[in-house]
């Protein structure tokens, strides 16, 4: 009869070949370094950016440390051995000298961002979102800089910050994520090329959303960007990042580090919509997204909130965390992670309670479809000093079809007897009756799934700024096309 395809295995495995809309390659003249990594490459990257000696020293120490570190293997991921000598560590558009204004930008680069729906012309930017665009290894444009500067806000590429605000960078670089932290953080510290830097002075509420758009374009390269955000006493900033990459059969490494510092009464909201190329249904190609993100609630009553929508990448290894050092500080983690096709995700958070009366909240929504494997891994650690700490964790998994997997690894290390820690976890499937009900109202299966999944993820999507929420909803729908189960 008419409806037997509801369970049709063919539908389960069908993936439209063109469903990754951002898979194009831009024809931009680029300088790409030869493949390979040694201390000379580190020196070359630093020299090219005219970096001060202290930064070169730091990079070299990181590189030395990295060489002694084993590749981490504890995650629920199958990662093919990576050849770190087969990657180029620096790629930049040829015209990447400092731009006086956006008019000087290579039209092809501008066209790339237009295609991505990220207009760089200041007058076109909706709702006052300031954008920093990072193409491969360098930042190509930062908008609204002048307006922000009037309030003492610094929003620029990392390289620029090293030259113009060296004291601010030096004070915080590596203080939240030291280069000894983990293998990929060490690698990033040695070879990071660019990224964004944000500084919000005391008492300033950043008047617009700040946003960085990351784009990998060059083949055979890795992207290693570094973002540092410092919010001084009483400051507030909301920051967004988006990411895409061309469709290629090779795997490309993206190993970023993000560090956030919030002083007394400061608040940082950091949102990510990650849509790196996920590879095809057979698991060929796609980005390896191995990222270290951590925020330090250094001041009293400070607050750091991570929101992430992870739909892309072949493999995601990422645990945006908060160290709750200041008394009465708050950490939040809201996540939607989707693993479809042959994608693998091992993602979650760490909430480290150190100060008194610290609070953390974790809401994780995993979605597994196709042959996707999705793991939530989260640590709640309450130190002896963290009197009256509270945590609430909720980890939900949604499974579509019978060839995907969902795994939950919650860890609790509670060293303070009065801590209140709550953990809830659910696993569910999209029931046939629910799909049938939606279909009866006129919604075809795929639209019904998009609706149901968006409903499931609503609590997290609601945390995103409006424009990003709309994009994220569409992304979830597109990423699930053909994954009826």
């Amino acid at each position, binding site marked *: 009869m008419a409806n037997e395809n509801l369970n049709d295995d063919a539908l389960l495995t069908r993936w439209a070949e063109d469903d990754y809309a951002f898979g194009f390659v831009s024809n931009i003249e680029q300088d790409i370094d030869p493949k390979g990594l040694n201390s000379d490459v580190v020196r070359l990257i630093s020299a090219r950016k005219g970096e001060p000696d202290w930064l070169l020293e730091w990079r070299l120490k990181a590189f030395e440390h990295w060489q002694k570190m084993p590749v981490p293997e504890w995650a629920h991921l199958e990662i093919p051995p990576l050849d770190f000598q087969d990657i180029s560590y620096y790629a930049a558009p040829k015209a990447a000298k400092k731009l006086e204004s956006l008019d000087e930008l290579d039209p092809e680069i501008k066209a790339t961002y237009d295609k991505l729906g990220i207009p760089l012309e200041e007058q076109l930017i909706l709702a006052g979102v300031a954008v920093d665009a990072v193409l491969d290894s360098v930042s190509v444009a930062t908008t609204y800089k002048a307006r922000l500067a009037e309030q003492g806000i610094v929003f620029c590429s990392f390289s620029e910050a090293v030259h113009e605000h060296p004291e601010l960078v030096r004070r915080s670089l590596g203080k939240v994520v030291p280069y000894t932290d983990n293998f990929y953080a060490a690698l990033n510290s040695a070879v990071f090329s660019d990224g964004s830097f944000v500084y919000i002075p005391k008492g300033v509420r950043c008047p617009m959303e700040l946003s960085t758009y990351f784009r990998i374009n060059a083949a055979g390269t890795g992207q290693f960007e570094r973002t540092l955000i410092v919010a001084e006493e009483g400051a507030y900033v909301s920051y967004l990042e988006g990411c895409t990459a061309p469709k290629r059969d090779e795997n490309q490494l993206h190993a970023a580090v993000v560090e956030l510092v919030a002083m007394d009464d400061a608040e940082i909201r950091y949102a990510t919509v990650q849509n790196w190329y996920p590879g095809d249904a057979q698991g060929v190609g796609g980005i390896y997204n191995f990222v270290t993100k951590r925020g330090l609630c250094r001041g009293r009553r400070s607050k750091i909130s991570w929101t992430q929508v992870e739909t892309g990448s072949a493999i995601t290894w990422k645990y945006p965390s908060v160290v709750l050092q200041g008394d009465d500080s708050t950490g939040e983690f809201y996540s939607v992670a989707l693993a479809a096709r042959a994608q693998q995700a091992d993602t979650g958070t760490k909430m480290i309670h150190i100060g008194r009366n610290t609070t953390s909240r974790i809401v994780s929504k995993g979605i597994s479809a196709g042959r996707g494997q999705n793991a939530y891994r989260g640590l709640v650690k309450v130190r002896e000093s963290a009197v009256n700490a509270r945590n609430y964790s909720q980890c939900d998994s949604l499974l579509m079809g019978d060839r995907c997997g969902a795994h939950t690894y919650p860890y609790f290390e509670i060293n303070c007897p009065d801590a209140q820690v709550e953990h809830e976890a659910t696993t569910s499937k999209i029931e046939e009756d629910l799909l049938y009900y939606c*279909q009866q109202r006129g919604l075809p299966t795929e639209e019904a799934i998009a*609706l149901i999944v968006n409903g499931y993820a*609503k609590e997290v999507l609601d945390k995103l700024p409006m424009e990003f929420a709309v994009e994220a909803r569409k992304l979830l729908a597109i990423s699930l096309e053909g994954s009826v189960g």
Partner: protein
Amino acid sequence: MTLQKPTLLQIRNLFASVQNRTILQGLNLEVPTGEVHAIMGPNGSGKSTLSHVLAGRPGYDIQGEVLMDGQDLLALEPEERAWLGVFLAFQYPVEIPGVSNTNFMRSAVNKVRSERGLAPLEAGDFLKHLREKAALVQLDPSYLSRPVNLGFSGGEKKRNEIFQLAMLEPRLAILDETDSGLDIDALRIVAEGVNSLRNNQNSFLVITHYQRLLDYIRPDVVHVLMDGRIVRSGDYTLALELESKGYDWLRDEVKSNA
């Protein structure tokens, strides 16, 4: 002289089985446009199966013919039937966490409209439509922003079904035991809603155990479904007869005729 009303729904020799158990056994039924037909019958006679076979629920083995406006309904997906104008008010409506009633209806109404070649409703028009129809079944406006059916009482869910019916303006509305779980006041509200939606362009198939609902929604024809077949059809007085005498006498009669 009365004009012959065109047939909206034509069911011929319909068999349906699930897991090798045959539930519908050669059912015949014809519903003209603009009429309300009631289907009554004892437990297990196949009433709900009939409603789901018409709506296209997966899982049944089906033989026979179902035509709507001459189109082969059985060849269509559930959503395609909805686009043609089939609506089923579920006996057990499901819950959709995180999706508000408003959002759900906006998706459904605009999808159905686009499939019928109509432009999507402008936000203002949609809200007006939404409020009007909610008022029709006295659905508190706060229910519009709540997730579909989540935490609704049994009666509220049924009322929400009729609200959706009103929103989607179907040509063939099937009410599957909408009266079960409704108290007498709610029953009257739901029935008044249905009555106000009746016109000479649409038809209703009202499936019920009890004659009570038919006091409020007066059918043109009453059919009795027994053992997967329509065994008797008549006017409203047949429902009264069943109410007072039960089904056994009819079963005996059918047996002795066979």
